[in-house]
C-alpha cells in the first residue's frame, strides 16, 4: 500500500532523512520510533506533502500513485490522513464546517444535517464535550481535546492510511486508551493502515504494531516486530549508540 524507497529529505539545506526504506501493507500497523530529533515527524510531514520538507532523492508510492508529484490535498483525497502532534486552530471555522468542505472537496454529496448527526455521535463515543463542536476548531482547546478532535476526523473521513504523529504526548491514560481503541477498531473494520509515531512504548500497549522501525539521526537503525519495542523498553535508545 505505502512504499518508501531510499528517501532523502532536506529542511533549509540540512539533511534530515538519509535514505529511508519502508513498506506498509493494507491493514498493517507500523510503529515508527526513535529519540527526539531522529526524523520521525519529518518523515510524517514529508508523507503528507508539507512544503517545508524538500525531497532530494527517493520515491514514495501509495497504491501505485507517485505521492511526490502530488499536492497535500491530492494526497489526502487518496485516503492519507495525519493526526497532527500540534493541531493548529482555525478561527471562525467549526469542525462541522471543515468536514463538510472536506467531504464535498472529495466530490461526495453530503447533507449538512446528516453530517452534523454523525459528528455528534462520534463525539459522544470519544467523550468529546459537545460544546466543542460549535466552537472554532482547536481554538482554546486543551491538548487532549485537540487530539480527540483529530481522531473524530479520522472516524468521519475513514482514511486508508492514518499517520498518528506523537498522539500520546500530553494525554492521560484514559484518553490514550480510548484513542488507541478507536484506531484499532478502524484497522479491524475497514482495514485501515497506520503509521504510528511515538517516542514512548506506552501507546503501543494499546495499539499493537505488526512492524516496528527505529530511526536515529535520519537513518533506520533497527526494524522488526513487536519484540523491538519490548527490547527498547528494557534497554532504552542507548543500545543504538
Amino acid at each position, binding site marked *: 500500500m505505502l512504499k518508501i524507497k531510499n528517501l532523502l529529505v532536506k529542511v533549509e539545506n540540512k539533511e534530515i532523512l538519509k535514505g529511508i526504506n519502508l513498506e506498509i501493507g493494507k491493514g498493517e500497523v507500523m510503529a515508527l520510533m526513535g529519540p527526539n530529533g531522529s526524523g520521525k515527524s519529518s518523515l510524517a510531514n514529508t508523507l503528507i*506533502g508539507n512544503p517545508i520538507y524538500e525531497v532530494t532523492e527517493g520515491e514514495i508510492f501509495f497504491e501505485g500513485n507517485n505521492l511526490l508529484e502530488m*499536492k497535500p490535498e491530492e494526497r*489526502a483525497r487518496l485516503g492519507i*490522513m495525519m493526526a497532527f502532534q500540534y493541531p*493548529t486552530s*482555525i478561527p*471562525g*471555522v467549526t469542525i462541522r464546517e*471543515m468536514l463538510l*468542505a472536506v467531504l464535498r472537496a472529495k466530490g461526495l454529496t453530503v447533507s449538512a444535517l446528516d453530517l452534523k448527526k454523525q459528528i455528534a455521535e462520534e463525539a459522544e463515543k470519544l467523550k468529546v464535550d459537545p460544546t466543542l463542536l460549535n466552537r472554532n476548531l482547536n481554538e482554546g482547546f486543551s491538548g487532549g481535546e485537540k487530539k480527540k478532535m483529530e481522531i473524530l476526523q479520522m472516524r468521519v473521513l475513514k482514511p486508508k492510511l492514518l499517520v498518528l504523529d506523537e498522539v500520546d504526548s500530553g494525554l492521560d491514560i484514559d484518553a490514550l486508551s480510548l484513542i488507541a481503541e478507536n484506531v484499532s477498531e478502524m484497522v479491524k473494520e475497514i482495514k485501515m493502515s497506520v503509521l504510528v509515531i511515538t517516542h514512548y512504548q506506552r501507546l503501543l500497549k494499546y495499539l499493537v504494531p505488526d512492524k516496528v522501525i527505529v530511526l536515529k539521526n535520519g537513518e533506520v537503525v533497527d526494524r522488526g516486530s513487536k519484540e523491538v519495542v519490548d527490547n527498547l523498553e528494557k534497554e532504552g535508545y542507548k543500545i543504538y549508540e
Partner: protein
Amino acid sequence: MSKKTDQNKLQDTPYSLGHTDEVEYEYQSPTGLDEDLIRKMSAMKKEPEWMLDRRLKALQIYEGMAMPTWGGDLSPIHGEEIHYYTRPKMDQAKSWDEVPDAIKKTFEKIGVPEAEREMLAGVKGQYDSEVIYGSLKRNLAEKGIVFLSMDEGLKQYPELVMEYFGKVVPIGDNKLAALNSAVWSGGSFVYVPKNVDVGLPLQAYFRINTESAGQFERTLIIADEGSRVHYIEGCSAPSFSSASLHSAVVEIFVKKGARVQYSTVQNWFKNVYNLVTKRAWVEENAEMKWVDGNLGSKLTMKYPSCILAGRKAHGELLSIAWAGAGQHQDTGAKMIHLAPETTSLIVSKSVSKGGGRATYRGMVQMVPGAYGSRSKVVCDALILDELSRSDTYPTNKIMENDVILEHEATVSRVSEEQLLYLQSRGINADEASTMIVNGFMEPVVKEIPLEYAVEMNRLVGLEMVGSVG
C-alpha cells in the same frame, strides 16, 4: 464597448452589480453646485421654508470649509463635475408589481429575492436622488411604525423632522456633512413608537445608477423609549468609468431603554468615494449597535459613532473592511461616554490584499463624571500579501479615573500552518485560504443578514482564487 473593458480592468474580480438599469429620469441638475440648484431642488420637493433655509446655510458652511486633509486622498473628487440632483421619472411605487422589471432584476441580484423580502418588515429602494420603491407591512403601520423616505417624512411629520434633523450631526459638523445638509435627497425616515418591537428588519437599498451622479441620502431614525428596530442598508453602483460621490448622513436617536441595530453592507463599485457621517444619540439603558461591512468603493471614510448620553447606555460597532487592489478603507468608530456606567465595544476587522489599504481610525472619549464606564477596542488586521497595508490609529481621551479601557490589536497573515492543515484534509489551497479569510471575518459577518453574509463569503471566494502561490 471599450468603456466596458476598461471598467473590468478596474475591478479585479467580476462585479455582478455593474450593469446600468434602464430608468427614465425626469430631471438631472447640471454639474456643479450653487444656490440656484438648492432653491430649485427644494422647490421641486415642495419643502417648507425652514428646510430651504437650512440647506442654504449648510451650503454657506460647506463653501467655507476645507476638505479634510487626513484619511484618504480626496483630491480626485471634482465638485464641479458632479450632478448633485438626479430625479428618476416615477413616483414611489407602493407595491412590488409597480416596480419596473429592470429594477426588480437588480433587487434579485443583490440577493433580495421575493422570499427574502417576506422576511423583512419593510423595504425602500433609492435610485440616485429619490426613493422609488417603498413598502411596510400593514400590521406594522397599524402599530404606529413609520418607515418613509426622508422627503416623505418631512412632508408627513414636519415637527419631528424639525426637532431631530441635524441635532446629532449638526450641519457644520464636517465639510461632507455640510454638503449633505445642503443637497440631501432621499434616505429613510423611521419612527418606532414606545415599547414597540419591529421584529423583522427594515431594509433600504441605495443605488447610484447614473454616471457622475452624487448620492446624498439622509436618514433619521427615532426609536422611542423601550422600542426595538433593526435597519439594514445595502449599496451598489454600475461600473462607470468616472468617479461617483456618495456622502450620506445618518442620525439615530435611541431613547431610554430602546435598542437599535443598524447594519450596512456597502458594495459600491471601485470608483465610488464613500464619505459618510453616522452618529447615534444613546440614552439611559439604551443600546446602539452598528454593524458595518465595507467591501466596495475606491475610498471609504466612515466612523459610526455613539454618544452615550444616559446612565448604562451601551454602544457597539462591529465592522469588517475589505481593501482590494486600488481600494482604501479608512474606517473606525467613535464612542463618547458622557454618562456613568456606560459601556462600549469596538470590534474592527480588516483584510487587505493586492495593494489595498485598510485603516482603523477610532476614538474613545470619557468625560469627567462618566465613572464606572468601560470600553473595549479590538482591531484585527489580516494582510494577504506584501503589497498591502494596514494601519491603526486609536485615540483615547480619558478624563475620568474610575473607568476601564481595554485595547487589543493584532496583525496577521494566512498562516502556512493553517493552510497545510486544511490541505492535508483534502481542501485545495484556494478554498483553504478562502475558508481562513471567511473564518477571520466570521465574528462580524454572522451579525449581518444571511443574504449579505452569503454574498460576502462568495466575494471572498472570488478574490482568493489564485492568491496562494
